[in-house]
């Protein structure tokens, strides 16, 4: 019963991603690019979800794995013939070797996982703010090294001349792959134990859960998916700079995750897709666009204000995220006529109503400095 219901929970996010990909494939060149970006964002947010959603620990570091994946996949697919001219300071090994775009995605994911694992071994011992800041430090260091060490990359300049092989379909496959991994992980023993530990670390230890180990597993998987997302990103745009995979992307992807609802895969996907589309729509509105009878025409830059304000209000009015951090269970037979992005069924919808008045409810208890109270 749980198993079957669990599987149906994968259907909604998968369908949403597929729908976005297919719609994207049918549009004009520029719009295809936008849709590809949506799907790559979704991949990143899913990567974030695997760690943050399951462990409850905020990490500002996942974008460093995206960065590593992007630069690795980009660098290794530039034909070695041109590398000496455009990247004269590279280590000979990096300059002399190249791989195909597809292989480079494995490279990106593998390096992301490796880096995450190595960073995770010490850092996963930390929790709370200390963990947040330590992972932020990882981001800063990665950014700084990639930006100024021109033996391993382009340094402060753009890495250009990367094959542009990722369109909506490729991005969709990437996002689906990430969603599958995330789904399998969250249903694995490790995933379930980590989610419990998220709720109460002390209680988890009392039932034998090795929190450090499970966090490390999630962090590594998240690193792999983030690296993959980086690989997709660089092959979409054909170039990459360190600024692209730094603070702004970190905040934006985190915001997508939280707006969607960071407790569920469905939330991650919904958040990424919704915020990305909102962004696209608002930018178009800046150029003037008709919404039904209305003619929306925004001043330049206003879209950013609106996007920010919308994200803030979504969090204010739905702090648990649009999905309430719950999975959406789609029952396949009833699927006819229902889009994948539609309402959760009633029971779950009722359950995730925020209840601002549940004062002093069990579970909202304050913490104590003792290990046990």
């Amino acid at each position: 019963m749980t198993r079957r219901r669990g599987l149906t929970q994968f259907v909604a996010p998968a369908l949403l991603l597929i729908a976005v990909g297919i719609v994207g494939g049918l549009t004009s060149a520029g719009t295809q690019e936008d849709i590809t970006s949506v799907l790559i964002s979704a991949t990143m947010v899913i990567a974030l979800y695997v760690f943050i959603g399951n462990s409850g620990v905020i990490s500002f570091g996942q974008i460093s794995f995206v960065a590593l994946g992007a630069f690795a996949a980009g660098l290794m697919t530039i034909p070695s013939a041109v590398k000496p001219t455009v990247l004269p300071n590279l280590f000979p090994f990096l300059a002399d070797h190249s791989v195909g775009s597809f292989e480079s995605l494995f490279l990106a994911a593998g390096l992301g996982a490796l880096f995450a694992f190595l960073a995770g071994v010490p850092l996963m011992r930390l929790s709370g703010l200390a963990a947040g800041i330590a992972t932020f430090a990882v981001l800063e260091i990665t950014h700084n090294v990639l930006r100024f060490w021109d033996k391993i990359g382009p340094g402060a300049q753009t890495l250009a001349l990367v094959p542009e092989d990722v369109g909506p379909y490729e991005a969709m496959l990437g996002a689906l792959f990430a969603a599958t991994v995330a789904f399998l992980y969250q249903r694995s023993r490790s995933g379930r134990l980590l989610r419990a530990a998220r709720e109460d670390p002390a209680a988890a230890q009392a039932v034998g859960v090795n929190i450090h180990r499970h966090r490390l597993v999630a962090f590594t998987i998240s690193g792999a998916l983030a690296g993959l997302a980086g690989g997709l990103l660089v092959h979409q745009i054909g170039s990459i700079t360190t600024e692209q995979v730094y603070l702004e992307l970190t905040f934006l992807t985190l915001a997508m995750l939280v707006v969607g609802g960071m407790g569920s895969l469905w939330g991650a996907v919904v958040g990424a897709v919704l915020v990305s589309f909102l962004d696209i729509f608002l930018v178009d509105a800046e150029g003037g666009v008709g919404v039904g009878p209305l003619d929306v025409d925004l001043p330049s830059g206003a879209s950013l204000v609106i996007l920010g304000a919308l994200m803030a209000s979504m969090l204010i009015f739905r702090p648990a995220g649009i999905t309430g951090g719950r999975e959406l269970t789609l029952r396949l037979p009833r699927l006819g006529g229902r889009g994948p992005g539609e309402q959760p069924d009633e029971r779950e919808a009722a359950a995730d109503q925020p209840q601002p008045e549940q004062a002093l409810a069990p579970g909202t208890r304050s913490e104590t400095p003792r290990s046990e109270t």
Partner: protein
Amino acid sequence: GGDDDDGDSGDTTAAAEEGPITIGAAVDQTDLMQFFDGPALAAAQIEAEQINAEGGVDGRDIEFEVEDTRLEPARTKSVAEDMIAGGADVLWVTCDVDWATPSIQEGINAGVLTVAPCIGTDQMGPKRFGDAGQLAYSFGNVAQDEGAALAELASDKGWKSANVVTDESIAYTQNACQAFKLRFEELGGEIASDETFTEGDGTINSVVNRVNGSDADMIAICATTQEDLPAFVSGVRGGGNETPIAGPWSIDGAFWLPKDPQVSNNIYVITYASIYGDDPNPDVRKLIAEMKKQGAEPATGGFVTGAAALQGIVEAIEENGGSTDGEALASTVEGFDGLDTISGSVSFSPDFHTAFGREYRVIEIKNGEPRFTGLIKAGEPVSFD
């Protein structure tokens, strides 16, 4: 007459050669680069209107199609893609080679001449983009040229020693000061101290203290007009150090100057045009007046590169008998040697797809007031090889 010839701008060369010449501008109108892209584009559009009013290019109008990249790489690419799919004859990109890369690659891979008005590094060409980079050009000054001109200015002023301060965060400032140092020493100057910082790294006040502790006839600073530059100037002057400070175009503009007239004093800037109402070229003054009228008052002299770039593009199309074929235009642009534009004469070479050879305006800031004080030329740009 092409004024009312508003034909279909289809993809085929034949049709394109009848309709207007479309320049697709993928520029930033939202974020940091709007500050450079906006004025340059506005100047170019004014120039285009004038050309159109005078009958266009071989009877064809010039039309700009402008899209906002918002400085987002994916959008930069998608916007350029759409423009090229829509038949743009020339691609016009953001004034920073790194931010512009996604659009530059779209342009050059589609065989379209790709032009930036004011990129200042030597990267806008094969150095960055390999063979296809043949199609990419910038009408900004290459930093090697600006640095050299700054050294010439120092030498003209009789300054014999210099404290050099370089922002290492971008290639342009690094190249400019590198060129300054090489040329300054060639001209017999001495580098008294050589300081570096990275914009935003928090070390600028240490740099100030070291510079204040080192005697020299001048301070050369290659930085951008972000927070550290005004912090530097305030610190130096606050320490009682009145040494002249000089820098390239990237420190042009009055907006960043500390308001205290004793602080904003004895500062020299070389730039494309004086925006302070006293540019020696009446065409430039007229252009500024026109921009003001449109509410697009320039904040640095860089705007004029926009008009110059358009003039260059038009010249190349005319030399090719109206063809907008990318390769043909590119080889013409590469061959420009002393092309006369509103921003003075510009040259290109296979080594430098970014312009050199201009006559720079020397702006002196005295007691908080910037004014034009003369012209300077680099002679040859410095070569790092």
